[in-house]
């Protein structure tokens, strides 16, 4: 194991912060991502990430920690998406297309101005692609608290979200305010995307949201197990990514570690692809009942 765990790994402050924050982010993204996939809201997640980029770069420009920028922009975008109706597909595509274009344009401007001010490209890189090794320890409590709030909110809403994804009418008929639940979920999603943007960058944040969840949904049958598997595989990819990035200091070109986000995303995608290597699910008919003549599709 010595070749993997370089000596001094756990003694390093930034590494410990990265492992802690990365773990929290992976759990939040994993749990929330399961519902993002079930509700077919990957697009919403991606839009939130784009808008978060604007917030993060704006916050950097005015000297705030980028997490607050991600969070404020994400929650504002969630409200806006609800207002223009993410449910209505046609209106949604056009309206979000326009809003996202404007948001990314503003992000480009903020990043440019930021670079002029500090004459480094490091900050732009951190906002777009993240770096868990430069997370400021001051924000750690806020990151942990936000992650806890988002996970708790989704856990409390889990049954209602499942019923709603089974059939919104079924939920409405039982007295569920489907719209309010959708809004609450979108806010939790915005928080989760902001966390993920801090960890692996705004551009890559959806990878951590969708990848582990998609992997888990291929492997598990029940909702609780899907959430657990998604969180676990996200944590595994994140931690292993951190270890590999730490090790990569010794890799060519010497003296520069590879970006940790690269490793995390590669591991997430590898995990997903691995699920296709498994033997195909169930070849034999499940029950005699299924074999009945002309059973409908």
């Amino acid at each position, binding site marked *: 194991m010595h070749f993997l765990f370089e000596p001094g790994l756990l003694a390093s402050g930034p590494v410990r912060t990265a492992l802690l924050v990365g773990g929290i982010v992976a759990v939040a993204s994993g749990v929330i991502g*399961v519902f993002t*996939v*079930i509700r077919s809201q990957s697009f919403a997640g991606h839009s939130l990430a784009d808008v978060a980029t604007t917030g993060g770069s704006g916050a950097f420009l005015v000297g705030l920690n980028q997490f607050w920028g991600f969070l404020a922009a994400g929650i504002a975008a969630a409200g806006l998406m609800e207002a223009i109706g993410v449910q209505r597909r046609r209106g949604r595509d056009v309206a979000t297309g326009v809003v996202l274009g404007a948001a990314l344009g503003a992000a480009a401007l903020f990043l440019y101005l930021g670079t002029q001010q500090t004459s480094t490209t490091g900050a732009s890189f951190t906002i777009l692609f993240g770096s868990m090794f430069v997370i400021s320890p001051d924000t750690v409590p806020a990151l942990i608290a936000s992650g806890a709030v988002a996970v708790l909110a989704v*856990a*409390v*809403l*889990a*049954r*209602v979200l*499942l*019923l709603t*994804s*089974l*059939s919104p*009418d*079924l*939920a*409405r*008929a*039982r*007295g*569920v305010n489907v719209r309010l639940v959708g809004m609450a979920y979108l806010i939790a999603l915005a928080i989760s995307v902001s966390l993920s943007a801090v960890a692996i960058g705004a551009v890559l944040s959806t990878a951590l949201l969708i990848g582990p969840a998609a992997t*888990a*949904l*291929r492997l*598990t*049958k*029940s*909702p609780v*197990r*899907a959430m657990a598997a998604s969180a676990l595989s996200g944590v595994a990819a994140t931690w292993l990514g951190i270890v590999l990035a730490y090790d990569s200091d010794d890799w060519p070109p010497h003296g520069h570690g590879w970006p940790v986000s690269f490793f995390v995303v590669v591991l997430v995608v590898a995990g997903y692809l691995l699920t296709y290597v498994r033997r195909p699910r169930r070849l034999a008919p*499940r*029950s005699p*009942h*299924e074999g*009945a*003549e*002309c*059973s*409908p*599709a």
Partner: protein
Amino acid sequence: MSQETAQHKTEQADLLKLEGIGVRLGGRLVLSDVTFGIRKGEFTGLIGPNGAGKTTLLRVILGLQEPSGGQVLIDGEPRQAHHNSSIGYVPQKLVIDPDMPLRARDVVSLGLDGHRLGFGFPSSRRRELIDMALRDVGAEKFADARVGELSGGEQQRVLIAHALISRPRMLLLDEPLANLDLKSEQEIVALLGKLARDNEISVLLSAHDMNPLLSVMDRIVYVANGHVATGSTDEVVTSEGLTRLYGHHVDVVRVHNRVLVVAGE
């Protein structure tokens, strides 16, 4: 049904009553002046051609569609939120993704408290209730399979168990027989007939073909042309009655215990 129980039922007050319901959709009056009642333990067929307004009527009863006029009464009082739990519902067509992480038993479990916030901790009592509901509809064989991977008939059973586990007094089913083969159709109809009889659940089932229901239907609500006609099958399904309802000539033909409604000249 014996003469005596039939007598008893007519004396009962209606569990559900629609009074002068009108529904306007997209500026068009889809239904007008719909009045009918449903009694405890009765099996009612909601029959009509495509687009007649069957789903719309069920949505009005469920409180999902605001009527433009009239009222829905449950136990004689206007329908309110607290009546939700008295009504079980099986929607028309659910498209469930095969990747949806819900086993048949999870769907049934959502019928128990899927509308509530908070966590549903597993307990042996809960498991027993779920197993019982699955057994009641003959779904125990695929209890642990993902719903998205079940056949149409199997999904239908699971959804009926989902609707029944909260012990509603009324069960509304929207086209549950569509896409079923003959055998599953007969099994589901027999199952629903038994539920109505033994558990005194009022069943309101929509279908475009009344024939599979003739053996179990106590009453028919025939929807066409924006209006309904209601009564026993023999009263409602006549050439004169349906001609009046449709507003153009139709012939009712009875052959081999089947009823055919055919458009006339």
